[in-house]
């Protein structure tokens, strides 16, 4: 391939011809990853930062992205008379903020700067923040090429700023590396408080930094034995010049021929101290007495162990002295190299006997650039927002690993990207989580469960054609939609392929991450809401039945009604375009009705059935306030959820309906729910009173996923939950209550309801298609009171 095979000189010569219009066409063909897919959205870029390391350059910029969003708006009454539809759907342009980070080899710096300059328009940027050892060396070049003044920032400050940023904004940023485990990468859950931590940065030397808060950090120590020692000493010993090659040599070597082990001195182990025979007693201890030369590989391996062990030991001593248990490792010595992550992990385990875990970061290489960027963007106050990793625009972890996927390496070995979108809402933990620090949203980690991974990757691949079709159908009037839909297909298929080989690329691989990635890819190609029309049709249809459903419920006895309400929610939940089994049925039988759905439902006892306990609870005093995370639009929300909400309100329970902030599949969005609720209120005095008296509140969840991460919810939602002293959380649907949150422990009563609409999953859970999960949980005593105390 173009980027991998040719020499740098040839590559640059070819690329420099890129901008002339005559060669562009041919260039695009030969470059698998064209530059406009690397330096994306440069037209709208501002605020540049650059981090130039020993071999890699990281460029950062901020851009405003204009993309389409689906909006709903009520028809006013005048027009409504002439239309069957309750609301109109419009696609609007919205401007959001995005951070771009691009990593490439220093050899390409000049070409990249040229490209940036040629595509930079309308920017009022005057300075570029720079950090890293190479910032000085390339200062003149940058200033000349870009015409921007280079403003240098302290390396360590940038590093820490960047580290805080990724730890706060990217779930699954940190991981533990376990070479011989089923999944090498064990991602850590986001901690509510990221401080304090220790950052061990292994560059040419080692810096050990204690970070106590956003602005308070201290270099508490360091060592001169670091990556430079490995590289420099390694080059002397093995005549191998490149760092990567040295690591490769090391991974093939045997250190036991060079090192003096405990068993070389003792003949076996040193039992009374518990030192095993294989332990290194003296690094390079055998090379003094042997007359023979040593294989390069063996010396490199010995050197690697010596340096890793030494750094690990010092890190442990500092962690112990400062009583810190979170220790992150970074720097070029670590940077995505399985070999060094393994030796450092081994060393930390050895010296702390497992008390401290070595943690690594997925975006470690970008920390300096992120920090430098943040320094320059302080007036935009990026830290006041929440940001989210854009899976569509980010390369993912280890795309450069030589062992993983040779194709992948050849393609993107040169360029690696990270994109982060500014979220419109600040995201926080649900205050009702029993223990936020141990909360894991996802039920199954597909990286560890090979069978499940196999199935779901297959499932999403199979469903792709349908999604493309649906996306296309949602924009019938746009001629270029076909092209975009095809690009979407390629992008998402490629993501699925990447994840097949590198399940760890974007953190823990879960059904949620697969769904979210799909949403990101759809948005990337301007399909903001492929289901908008379907949702609209179903909503309109369902509204027509609302009063009839309510009336028939009213006719039941109290006991019968309670059960019918639950069956109603479950029957509504059968309607789900996100589930393959159902979308097939919906596609073929559009008249598939609510009553039919009820007949599809499993009879009691359900697969998970705590209805009796719930029923007993209903006989007791009403709940103060129920928080209801709703799922699908159409029959689900209107005929299933709303009658249930109505009953809760009648009981004297306040209700907070939490719905998605932006579209995902056929899930009802906050915008849609506003309109739906108003039109239901027009028919139903109970709902109307609820709204009027502020006992029924609609809030957005802050999410645009078919699943639910209770640790990243809209700040307003969290506030409302606290204010209203919420004592019941209801989570509905497969995405929110089974793929995620099935095991979530809440500090108040909770109800998790879902119909299993996937036969594989049903099989796994020991049920069958349309099995019901009805999980009513009451926390162990002692939790409910403390959870609602403001922090």
């Amino acid at each position, binding site marked *: 391939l173009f980027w991998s095979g040719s020499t740098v000189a040839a590559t640059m010569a070819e690329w420099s011809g890129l901008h002339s219009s005559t060669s562009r066409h041919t260039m695009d063909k030969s470059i698998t990853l064209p530059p406009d897919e690397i330096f994306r959205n440069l037209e709208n870029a501002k605020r540049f930062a650059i981090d130039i390391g020993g071999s890699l350059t990281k460029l950062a910029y901020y851009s405003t992205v204009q993309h389409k969003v689906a909006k709903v708006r009520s028809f006013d009454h005048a027009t409504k008379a002439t239309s069957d539809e309750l609301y109109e759907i419009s696609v609007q342009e919205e401007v959001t903020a995005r951070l771009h980070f691009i990593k490439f080899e220093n050899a390409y710096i000049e070409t990249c700067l040229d490209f940036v300059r040629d595509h930079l328009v309308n920017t009022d940027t005057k300075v570029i923040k720079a950090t890293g050892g190479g910032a000085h060396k390339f200062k003149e070049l940058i200033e000349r090429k870009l015409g921007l003044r280079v403003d240098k920032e302290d390396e360590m400050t940038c590093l820490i700023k960047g580290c805080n940023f990724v730890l706060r904004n990217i779930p699954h940023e940190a991981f533990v590396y376990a070479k011989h485990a089923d999944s090498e990468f064990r991602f850590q859950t986001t901690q509510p408080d990221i401080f304090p931590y220790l950052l061990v940065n292994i560059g040419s030397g080692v*810096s050990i930094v204690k970070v106590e808060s956003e602005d308070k950090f201290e270099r508490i120590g360091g060592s001169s034995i*670091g990556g*430079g*020692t490995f590289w420099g000493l390694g080059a002397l010993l093995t005549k191998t010049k490149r760092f990567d090659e040295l690591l490769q040599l090391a991974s093939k070597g045997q250190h036991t021929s060079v090192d003096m082990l405990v068993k070389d001195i*003792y003949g076996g182990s040193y039992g009374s101290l518990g030192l095993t025979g294989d332990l290194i*007693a*003296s*690094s390079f201890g055998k090379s003094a007495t042997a007359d023979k030369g040593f294989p390069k590989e063996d010396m490199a391996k010995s050197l690697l162990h010596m340096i890793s*062990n030494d750094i690990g*030991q010092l890190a442990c001593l500092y962690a112990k002295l400062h009583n810190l248990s979170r220790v992150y490792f970074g720097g070029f010595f670590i940077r995505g190299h399985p070999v060094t992550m393994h030796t450092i992990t081994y060393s930390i385990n050895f010296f702390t006997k497992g008390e401290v875990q070595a943690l690594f970061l997925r975006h470690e290489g970008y920390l300096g650039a992120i920090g430098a960027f943040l320094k320059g963007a302080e007036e935009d106050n990026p830290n006041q927002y929440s940001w989210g990793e854009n899976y569509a625009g980010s390369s993912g972890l280890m795309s450069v690993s030589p062992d993983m996927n040779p194709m992948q390496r050849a393609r993107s070995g040169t360029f690696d990207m990270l994109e982060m979108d500014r979220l419109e809402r600040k995201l926080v933990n649900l205050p009702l989580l029993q223990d936020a620090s141990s909360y894991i949203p996802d039920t199954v980690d597909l990286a560890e469960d090979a069978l499940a991974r196999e199935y779901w990757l297959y499932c999403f691949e199979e469903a792709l054609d349908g999604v493309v079709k649906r996306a296309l159908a949602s924009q019938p009037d746009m001629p270029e939609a076909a092209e975009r839909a095809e690009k979407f297909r390629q992008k998402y298929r490629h993501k699925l392929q990447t994840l097949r080989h590198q399940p760890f690329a974007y953190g823990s691989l879960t059904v949620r991450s697969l769904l979210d990635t799909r949403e990101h890819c759809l948005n990337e190609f301007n399909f903001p809401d492929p289901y908008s029309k379907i949702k609209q049709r179903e909503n309109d249809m369902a509204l027509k039945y609302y009063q009839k459903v309510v009336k028939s419920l009213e006719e039941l006895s109290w006991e019968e009604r309670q059960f019918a309400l639950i069956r109603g929610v479950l029957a509504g939940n059968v309607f789900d375009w996100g589930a393959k089994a159902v979308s097939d049925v919906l596609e073929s039988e559009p008249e598939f009705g609510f009553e039919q759905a009820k007949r599809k439902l499993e009879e009691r006892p359900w697969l998970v059935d705590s209805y009796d306990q719930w029923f007993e609870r209903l006989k007791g005093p009403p709940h103060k306030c129920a928080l209801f995370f709703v799922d699908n639009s159409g029959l689900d929300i209107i005929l299933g959820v709303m009658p249930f909400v109505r009953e809760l309100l009648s009981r004297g329970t306040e209700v907070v309906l939490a719905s998605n902030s932006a579209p995902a599949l056929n899930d009802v969005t906050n915008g849609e729910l506003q309109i739906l609720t108003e039109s239901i209120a027009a028919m139903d005095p109970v709902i109307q009173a609820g709204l009027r008296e502020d006992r029924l509140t609609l809030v957005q969840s802050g999410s645009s996923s078919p699943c639910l991460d209770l640790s990243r919810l809209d700040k307003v939602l969290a506030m409302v939950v606290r204010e209203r002293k919420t004592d019941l959380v209801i989570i509905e649907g497969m995405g929110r209550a089974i793929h995620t949150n099935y095991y979530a422990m809440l500090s108040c009563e909770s109800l998790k309801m879902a119909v299993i609409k996937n036969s594989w999953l049903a099989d796994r859970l020991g049920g069958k298609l349309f099995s019901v999960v009805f999980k009513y949980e009451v926390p162990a005593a002692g939790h409910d009171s403390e959870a609602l105390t403001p922090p």
Partner: protein
Amino acid sequence: MKLLAVIETSAPLSSLYHIMPSFPWFGMDIGGTLVKLVYFEPKDITAEEEQEEVENLKSIRRYLTSNTAYGKTGIRDVHLELQDLTLCGRTGNLHFIRFPTHDLPAFLQMGRNKHFSSLHTTLCATGGGAYKFESDFRTMADLQLHKLDELDCLIRGVLYIDSVVSSGPSECYYFENPTDPDRCIQKPYTLENPYPLLLVNIGSGVSILAVYSETNYKRVTGTSLGGGTFLGLCCLLTGCSTFEEALEMASQGESTRVDKLVRDIYGGNYERFGLPGWAVASSFGNMMSKDKRESVSKEDLARATLVTITNNIGSITRMCALNENIERVVFVGNFLRVNTLSMKLLAYAMDYWSKGQLKALFLQHEGYFGAVGALLELLHPA
């Protein structure tokens, strides 16, 4: 905990020897690189005794005391000899002898030639080699080793030697003004009330012990970057073959050509973190560059290796001292033999980085304490 181990290992011995053991009196420490041997030469032998003394014993005594070198590699450190020492009621001189561990077969052959086994003595030995070579002692020289824990012996030896040396140069010393090369001088130190004490033994590898009393101590940690690493790397980098050669080269080299200093990166001090410009930022860091690799001398490389290993031991030690809350550090082990460079570096590092809180102490008999401890075990089973 440690105390128990001592009692266990010595139990069979004390039941065998209720009275003074028969001559010759040896203590042996077989390390990864060097064998250390201490020999007590009785000087108060009566005429009667002399008559009874078997020829083999006489021959061994004469051989050891009349030579200062044995074979190609055995050496007696005459300057360390302790005279007029009273041990177990006997007066005599204590001799300190060393030879490379790889020459142990030659030593065993000599023992066989001199019919050492006919003396029915117990050979108290410590160090890993006491375990590794136990069967060789038995098969090649018909000798039964009494194996002892090396850390028990080390501590016993240190405390004993420090207590008996009264004349001549002080056993324990330190460097005054360690941060000022012009005024840095060696000064005697009295190791009274020595506890708690951090004892750093730098042999092929390094062990760091926190010592609270003669019998109460723990091994805090260790590092594989020790004397063996210095010599091993020097041999690979410079082609030298002995410790003395490596040290000689190091004394003539300049490590700043090999190491990357803070000032090489920041142009001066790194004020933000209080790092002085002269501090090493990356050991061997300049060797990442091909040009610089081609311009350094072997002497520079030897010096950089010495500085790297020494400073690393210094920082690990300093961290241990902080974690254990101990202010006095005694460095021992043969890495420090004739190695004033490293001792001064350690003294400097301890003082500078602890802002004067930590004191680095050294002992004249740096590498022999394990062997002395083994000898003491023969005479006074703990």
